[in-house]
């Protein structure tokens, strides 16, 4: 679950990290009211789940209320890498002497937590990693051992932060690690972490991704479900509990199992088609799940053909066939369906589907031939 900057700052604040006072605004008037309450100067910051906001004109300094009005009206509705800005964060402006970078994430290869700290903050860390990799100090933390203060001090020294920033950074980095672990985050990032002319270390930005699997420990995370960026199709599928990712092609795909679903997209591409989506209906393929999946695909106006790819393991072929037949009775499908059914009791399933075959429902013996058929139907 991706948090907006302001949600990330609220999250950090819960762990005692210093963030600037601010207010969220959904309109120009709300932005102005927030700025009046906070007192100018303020920053007007677009809230979107993507980087590069500054470059796109989504982050502006406003010296007075007129400037807030001007910037808020420009930023609200702005398209930043396909994300339309619907909310702006109005925050008390800070004086900046230096900008740093700090983050924690899981290093899957080392199977440890990886902390990254750099004196060169305020720019994308990928750029620093490419142009000046030595400027990033890394620390690997064993989750069982945790992050000790001595380690943090050594890490800060390795990053060459100035003396004035050391004590403030020790405090913030320890709290950042606690937030990352106790908050079950996949990633926490502060960019920039700033040093003010007065010598105070302060959190100026927050990028947080939370682990959706941890909601049982953090019931309050359910609030973030409503602010995830999903297109209409993804939202509809999510509401039905389906694993769905929207793509921009014309072949609707339904498969059982994440691996087989990914593989189905690959095969559709290999035979010259473009998949409209990734959709994993999981192990079972009963009528309810199948009907829900077909409904979601059917509502995608780009879909011109549907490819159902099922390998029955524990799920038996006749159950799958029954699910498809029943689902087709419940949902009126606009596009032709091509089925490939293999695995346990596949022949029985195929026999059951046989009387229903025609222009609306076709069957192919292999994944490849089914993909070819579906793609040819798109071409008309």
């Amino acid at each position, binding site marked *: 679950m991706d948090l907006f900057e302001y949600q990330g700052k609220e999250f950090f604040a819960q762990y005692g990290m210093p963030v600037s006072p601010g207010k969220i605004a959904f309109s120009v008037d709300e932005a102005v009211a927030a700025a009046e309450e906070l007192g100018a100067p303020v920053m007007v910051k677009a809230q979107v789940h993507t980087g590069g906001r500054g470059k796109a004109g989504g982050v502006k300094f406003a010296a007075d209320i007129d400037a807030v009005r001007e910037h808020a009206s420009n930023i609200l509705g702005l398209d930043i890498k396909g994300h339309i800005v619907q909310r702006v964060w109005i925050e008390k402006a800070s004086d900046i002497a230096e900008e740093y970078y700090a983050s924690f994430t899981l290093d*899957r290869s080392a199977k440890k937590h990886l902390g990254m700290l750099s004196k060169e903050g305020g720019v994308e860390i990928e750029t620093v990693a490419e142009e000046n990799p030595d400027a990033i100090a890394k620390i690997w933390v*064993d989750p069982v051992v945790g992050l000790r203060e001595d380690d943090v001090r050594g890490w800060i020294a390795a990053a060459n932060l100035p003396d004035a920033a050391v004590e403030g950074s020790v405090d913030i980095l320890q709290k950042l690690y606690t937030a990352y672990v106790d908050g079950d985050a996949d990633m926490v990032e502060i960019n920039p972490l700033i040093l003010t002319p007065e010598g105070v270390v302060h959190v100026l930005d927050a990028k947080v991704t939370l682990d959706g699997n941890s909601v049982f420990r953090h019931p309050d995370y359910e609030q973030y479900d409503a602010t995830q960026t999903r297109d209409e199709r993804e939202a509809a599928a999510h509401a039905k509990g389906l694993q769905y990712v929207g793509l921009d092609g014309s072949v609707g795909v339904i498969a059982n*199992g994440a691996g*087989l679903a990914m593989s189905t997209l690959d095969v559709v591409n*290999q035979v010259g088609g473009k998949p409209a989506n990734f959709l994993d209906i999981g192990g079972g393929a009963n009528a309810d799940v199948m009907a829900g999946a077909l409904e979601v695909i059917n509502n995608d106006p780009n879909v011109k053909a549907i490819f159902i790819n099922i390998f029955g393991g524990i799920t038996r072929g006749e159950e799958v066939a029954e699910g498809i037949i029943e689902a087709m009775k419940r949902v009126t499908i606009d596009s032709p369906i091509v089925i490939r059914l293999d695995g346990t009791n596949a022949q029985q399933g195929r026999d059951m589907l046989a009387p229903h075959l025609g222009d609306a429902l076709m069957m192919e013996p292999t*994944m490849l031939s089914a993909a070819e058929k579906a793609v040819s139907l798109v071409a008309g």
Partner: protein
Amino acid sequence: MAIFLDETTKVVYQGLTGSTGRYYGNLNREYGTNIVGGTHPKKAGTDVDGMPIFASVADAKAETGCNASCIFVPPPAVKGAVMEAAEAGMELVVVITEGVPAHDEAWFYNKLVADYPDTRLLGPNCPGIISPGKANIGITAGHIAKAGGPVGVVSRSGTLTYQAVYELKEKDIGVTTSVGIGGDPVPGTNFIDCLAAFEADPETKAIMMIGEIGGSAEEEAAEYIKANVTKPVVSYVAGVTAPPGKKMGHAGAIVSGGKGTAAAKMDALRDAGVQVGLNPTEAGDLMAEIVKNL
């Protein structure tokens, strides 16, 4: 021979009293797996379809001498269940449960490495392991695999594993052991563990390795193959067309920051002398050629 699991392995099921655990426990027993029973702290002395329930894994071990555990408990209970099994001295712990928090996984993975190095963890979020004709732990349909080798299979994806072993069976090719390492970010057992075991297993003559996008496990496996594996390896990597930044069903299947793409993984594998199929069928055909010439 087989790797990690055979007919002598004695398995206890943590979560056997739940509906999923009971269902697959029965299927695994029917397959021939040596199941000693299940555990439940409050139901000791009862049974599930004739399989006795013990209060704990330690009790089950004291009574039966079991040396492996299969975990079907819900995600919040997985961390405790894994530690219980490790503390009781289980040599193999298979976690089927999906949806375990990544921080829990990272924690118990490192805890086991540090304090219980003799415990092999498989999963979480994996289909399990099957040594066809001998034993089956997890959710794989036993009959889709032909027993006897010569192919060892290792995969991150459940359904693609099924697809692979089934295609091999259709071509009358047997499997020594098929290991599903699972689709989570911190798998207890990785490709390299399985490659090393297959390389050492005299009955395994060739290896099928099925990867997917995300992380760098395939690249690391490629390096390992180049340096250590003499047996032929065929591979397939799912997710060539997956868009960056999107989790494709599995928690670990995500291309982020330009890293973890299928193309990079396939290149690394080819560079290590692995034959790479562009889809599961092609990988099956490549393997059939290899087996024919063994």
